[in-house]
């Protein structure tokens, strides 16, 4: 599967790796807890996993991503608005 880290790169990761899902859910739980430190740690873990286990996709490759991660400098407030407001990308 292809995962994009917004503002950074697309990575090709092995399909069906449950760890990605676990890390993503940990981020969601951290957002709901409203604790900045916990969110930072959880999101950095998710990003680190993708960078460490993925192979960067070539710049001229036109494939679309299966998953898109928000920018690495995402704040807790922005993460919260992803779920409640119109999100990072307004219409």
């Amino acid at each position: 599967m292809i995962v994009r880290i917004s503002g950074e790169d697309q990575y090709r990761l092995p399909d069906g790796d449950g760890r990605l899902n676990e890390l993503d859910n940990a981020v969601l739980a951290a957002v709901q807890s409203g604790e900045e430190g916990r969110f930072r740690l959880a999101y950095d873990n998710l990003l680190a996993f993708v960078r460490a286990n993925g192979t960067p996709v070539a710049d001229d490759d036109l494939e679309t991503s299966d998953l898109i991660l928000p920018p690495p400098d995402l704040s807790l407030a922005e993460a919260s608005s992803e779920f409640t407001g119109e999100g990072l990308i307004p219409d």
Partner: protein
Amino acid sequence: MPGLTGRMSTVVKAKVSKLLDKAEDPAETLDYSYQKQVEQLQNVKKGIADVVTAKKRLQMQESTLQQQVVKLDTQARQALSGGQEDLARTALERKNVVQTELQSLDTQVHELEEQQQKLTDSEQKLRAKIEAFRTKKEVIKAQYSAAEAQVKISEAATGVGEQMADVGLAMQRAVDKTENMKARADAVGELEAAGTFDDITQLGSGEDDIDRQLKQLSSNSAVEGDLAKLKGELNMPTQPAGAGGSAGELGAASDDAEASDGAGTQGSAEQDASNAPAEGGQG
């Protein structure tokens, strides 16, 4: 995926499919998409230029502030040599405020440099994808029937569309950051308007409103430390003052003392512009 990534992916995909819902004829869609992509690339270039402009503006302010530090230091020296310790203290307090502002500007310039680098990287990726799309669209036009072409087009175009949405987001974030920088630049402007950069030797020894505010703002122990150090350099008896300030700055500043003549001329020009608000503050 139910988490953060799932939400983000859905939003981006919805945005990309909106971009593609414009034309019905495959060949027309291809050319339309490509034209839009090239336009978007131009916008990105313009966005980068805006960030560079904002950075230059802050760098110019930095150099103004650096001149002020040298000038205020020289004035403190002159005041102390002339036995006007109060005036020397005022100069050092102002120097302290300017130095704090300088540090903060430095951080902002750094951030803008990072933004510039990120946008430049994004632009290169988008350019590569658009170029790949251009090649692919000619292949699709030549080799596929209308029905097949429709599928191939949307595959290729969503790849570019996703990159465009991503660079759009990066630009938006850069613009937000640049807005913050403008607020910072305005804060420096306010310092000028408040008379912080005025030639203090023209103030006399009387304490005005700005002085009192500055005393609250600046760290007294640092100022007293600077004052004690200056006295040491001028071979004057030092009174037991507060904790020592940071070492090494004054020596470096005195080497640059000649540069402060130029800064002085500039300072008086700024002073004229800033008189009105400064007087308003005293009333």
